[in-house]
C-alpha cells in the first residue's frame, strides 16, 4: 500500500527522473542483449538489429511500464475526458436528451427537497421552539336520549 503510494507520487512529481530511469533500464537491457549476441559471433550491426526486432515496439514497452507504474493516470484521465466530449459533440440529439434528463431529474429533486426542507426540517421561526406545546381540547358529548 505504502510503496504503491510512494511510487505513484514519485512518478507524478518527479516525472522526468522516472522517465529517464525507465529509459536507462531498457537501454541497459538492450545493450546487454546485444553484447550477448556479439559474444556469440554476430557483428555489432547485426546484434543491434536482432535486439531491436526482439524488443518490438520500444515505445509500447515504455507505455506498458508507465501503466504498471501508475504514471499515466492523470494523462489517461484527460484523454478519457476529451474522448467523452468528442463523442457528445458527435451526436447532439443524444446529448440533448441526456442533458434534459439530468436537468429534469436534478430540478425535480431540488424542488422536492426544498419543500421537505421547509416543511419538515427547518425549525419554526419563533423564540425557543422546543417550548411550544400543542393544546387540544375536546368535549365529550353524551346523548341523553340513548342512555337507559
Amino acid at each position, binding site marked *: 500500500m505504502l510503496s504503491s503510494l510512494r511510487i505513484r507520487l514519485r512518478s507524478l512529481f518527479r516525472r522526468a527522473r522516472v522517465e529517464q530511469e525507465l529509459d*536507462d533500464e531498457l537501454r*541497459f*537491457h538492450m545493450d*546487454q*542483449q546485444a553484447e550477448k549476441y556479439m559474444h556469440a559471433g554476430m557483428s555489432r550491426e547485426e546484434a543491434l538489429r536482432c535486439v531491436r526486432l526482439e524488443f518490438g515496439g520500444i515505445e509500447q*514497452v515504455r507505455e506498458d511500464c508507465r501503466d*504498471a507504474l501508475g504514471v499515466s493516470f492523470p494523462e489517461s484521465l484527460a484523454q478519457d475526458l476529451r474522448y467523452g466530449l468528442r463523442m457528445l459533440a458527435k451526436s447532439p440529439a443524444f446529448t440533448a436528451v441526456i442533458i434534459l434528463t439530468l436537468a429534469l431529474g436534478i430540478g425535480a429533486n431540488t424542488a422536492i427537497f426544498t419543500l421537505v426542507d421547509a416543511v419538515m426540517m427547518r425549525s419554526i421561526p419563533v423564540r425557543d421552539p422546543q417550548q411550544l406545546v400543542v393544546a387540544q381540547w375536546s368535549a365529550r358529548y353524551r346523548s341523553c336520549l340513548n342512555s337507559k
Partner: protein
Amino acid sequence: MPIPRIDLPQGTLDLLILRTLSLGPQHGWAISERVQQVSGEVLRIQQGSLYPALHRLERRGWIKAHWGTSDNNRRAKYYALTRSGHKQLTTEQDAWEALTAAVAQVLKAV
C-alpha cells in the same frame, strides 16, 4: 534443431520473477537470462512483458528496486525481494503446485 518454446501461461511470469529474485537481487536482463537458462531454453520472457511486470510487482511492494553497478561496470537497476514478496512467493508457489497436480490428475484419469 530448434528447441520448442512454450509461451508463458497467464500469471506464471510473476511467479518466475519472484522465484528468481529469491536467490538474490538481480537486474531485469539477468532475470530473463536465468529463467531461459534454467528452463533449458524452453521458457523465454519477452522484454515487453518483463519490465511492466517488474514495475507492477514493485508497486505491489513485493520487490524493491535500487541502482547498482553491473558486472561490466554499468549502472543497472537491481530488484530484490521484500519480506511481503517472500510471502507472496510462497503463496503463489503453493497455488501453482496445487494447480499443476490437479491438472495432472485430471489428465491421467481414465
